[in-house]
């Protein structure tokens, strides 16, 4: 394991010894989330969100499996089967609302987890692989959430499927055939609904698999920490259990309080009324918006309004629609390159005065604006705002971060985690 002072699993009793020699699963768990995993002692509450994301995935898988026992993926029956769950199935309303809001809470938790990584430089060497796997999980989550939203076959489900698969038709030459391949037809219909259900059931398990890789990769260098200073010795760490299991237990309680409050008292707050209207291929809702967690990306898509071409010739090289689609995917894919764009050797934003300014006064406001504008109709003021915010978003990652990491003069780092925590310099090495 990562640190030489990690405690070793000692099987107690003959059965445990017998199992340990044949399939050391308890040992694996002990070393992964037990006393055998030394973790920096100074983690703050932002470090709770990794475990919470795992809990959110479990909530989604468990409620999803039981919902699938009652749901039928048919264009005539899907909407009614969801209402059957809401009305007639025992505790069905609870399972459905928990799944519906569980998706939103999964994204809330994962977004906080990502922002923690962005601020504290968790993506930097030697943790690049954890970051790459994390972005992969995020992409898989988005695909899963989109397909899940189609399943109730309400108006937003249908038109969401229509619009999202429409992105692919922007690709030159292969676009339209590709869209037909995805949908299994010319418009979302039975074929599309069935495959979305099949994939929506499959992908959470793929996500779970990538999470195992994510956690595995985490255990090679060990967790990062708010100072960004590497662990120097045993005094810098505590065993995951009981220290962080206890802290995560408390964090879980707080998370569940929020989750329960929304699920039981405002279950439709994060949803859209139009999805309680059965899908109608002949009539588009007045105002189509995706679920809130897609709004920033939707705003980026809509922000591209001019074609890229050669001026005064009328030759268009990249039409605005294609550019919007490229930029929308690009806005997520650029995260894959982040470890090589931000080259500052200092990890934590605490010790990076310039980076911190751009993070708090640039990146966060631009994403808030994009989320807000993504849900608004295309009126001038919202388009203008989202164009400014989207321009900043791309500039932040692709231009500002590389420059900042070159010109910035970081603050003095503490010598060690223990020193940062206790405020006392380490005694001379014993």
């Amino acid at each position, binding site marked *: 394991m990562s640190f030489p002072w990690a405690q070793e699993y000692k099987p107690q009793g003959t059965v445990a010894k017998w199992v340990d020699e044949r399939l050391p699963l308890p040992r694996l768990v002990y070393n992964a989330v037990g006393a055998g995993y030394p973790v920096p002692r100074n983690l703050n509450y932002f470090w709770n969100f990794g475990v919470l994301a795992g809990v959110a995935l479990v909530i989604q898988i468990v409620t999803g499996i039981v919902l699938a026992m009652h749901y039928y993926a048919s264009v005539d029956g899907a909407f009614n089967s969801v209402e059957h769950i809401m009305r007639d199935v025992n505790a069905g309303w609870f399972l459905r609302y928990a799944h519906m809001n569980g998706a939103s809470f999964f994204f809330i938790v994962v977004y906080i987890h990502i922002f923690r990584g962005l601020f504290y430089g968790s993506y930097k060497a030697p943790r690049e692989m954890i970051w790459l796997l994390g972005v992969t999980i995020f992409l898989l989550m988005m695909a899963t959430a989109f397909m899940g939203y189609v399943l109730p076959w309400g108006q937003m489900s249908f038109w969401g499927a229509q619009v999202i698969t429409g992105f692919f038709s922007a690709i030159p030459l292969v676009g339209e055939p590709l869209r037909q391949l995805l949908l299994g037809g010319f418009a979302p219909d039975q074929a599309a609904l069935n495959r979305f259900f099949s994939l929506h059931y499959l992908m959470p398990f793929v996500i779970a698999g990538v999470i195992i890789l994510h956690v595995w990769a985490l255990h090679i260098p060990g967790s990062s920490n708010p100072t960004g200073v590497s662990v120097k010795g045993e005094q810098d760490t505590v065993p995951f259990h009981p220290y962080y299991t206890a802290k995560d237990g408390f964090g879980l309680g707080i998370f569940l309080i929020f989750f329960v409050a929304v699920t039981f008292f405002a279950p439709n707050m994060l949803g859209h009324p139009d999805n309680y209207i059965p899908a109608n291929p002949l009539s588009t809702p007045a105002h189509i918006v995706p679920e809130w967690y897609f709004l920033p990306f939707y705003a980026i898509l809509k922000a591209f*309004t001019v074609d890229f071409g050669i001026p005064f010739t009328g030759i268009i090289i990249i039409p*605005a629609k294609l550019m919007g689609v490229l930029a929308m995917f690009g806005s997520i894919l650029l995260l894959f390159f982040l470890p*090589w764009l931000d080259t500052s050797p200092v990890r934590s934003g605490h010790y990076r005065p310039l980076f911190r300014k751009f993070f708090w006064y640039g990146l966060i406001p631009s994403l808030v604006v994009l989320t807000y504008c993504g849900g608004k109709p295309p009126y001038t003021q919202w388009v203008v705002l989202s*164009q400014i915010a*989207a321009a900043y978003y*791309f*500039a932040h990652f692709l231009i500002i971060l590389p420059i900042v990491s070159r010109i910035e003069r970081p603050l003095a780092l503490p010598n060690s985690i223990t020193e940062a925590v206790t405020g006392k310099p380490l005694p001379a090495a014993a």
Partner: protein
Amino acid sequence: MVRLVAFLVGLFFSGMLLLGLGDTIVSAIKEPALPTVEAGFHEETLPVTFAHDGPLGKFDRGQLQRGLKVYSEVCSACHSLKLVAFRDFAALGYSEDQVKALAKGWKTEVPSINPETGEPATRPGIPADKIPSPFANETAARAANNNALPPDLSLITKAREGGPAYVYSLLLGYRDQAGYKNEEGKELLKEFPDAATPPGLHFNPWFANLNIAMAPPLAADDQVTYDDGTKATKQQMAKDVAAFLTWTAEPKMENRKSAGWAALGFLLIFTLLAFMSYRTIWADKKH
């Protein structure tokens, strides 16, 4: 290399966005968006409160029964309630026999087949049946309603922004368009002379595009005679049917809220215990 490519890509995307920004502003100045009649004259829902509002709210059974009466005597002539079964009415406080009588006496019979000939037929409803729809299919509904489709009402309070307040406002929102002014005192037909309600439609500023195909359903007070002696004013009927339609859309609301309180209470204790446990374990660790 990565950074050089990133720089160029970033420059391209941000540059195109800034070009777009200029374009948006220029075209907004050159061709400002025309004001729309909906923007100026569509109304927010009327203020109305219900017994079921809020995290402690419970349905008023008497009101739901009155609402059912309004639905069955007024709305059900055109609007279906497909997701609700007669047996569900037990939750409104009706006994088993009353539910049976309601099902049997419903003005539309349940589609069926003649057991001997197999011909389409109808039979009286039983509690297990869903409420029969007034029209056999969408085409029939449109044919009878000047090509407008009366929406199913089962989920209407969840399917419209504003929920029951929207239903309430819409039912009471019919106005005479001639001389109609909004709160700012602007007269609709003076501002938008082209926006006159076309024949066959009805002016209602609470409807999304201001012109609704539904004729005013609640025409006068005492259109429905309430069994419990409540005076059936238009406001009362609109409020009762809005409450009833909240129940049809969310029949498990009371279970949901009470389960929510139990879950919250449990979690508060758990979180407190977990916090104490956390503090105890960390008591000796400065962090």
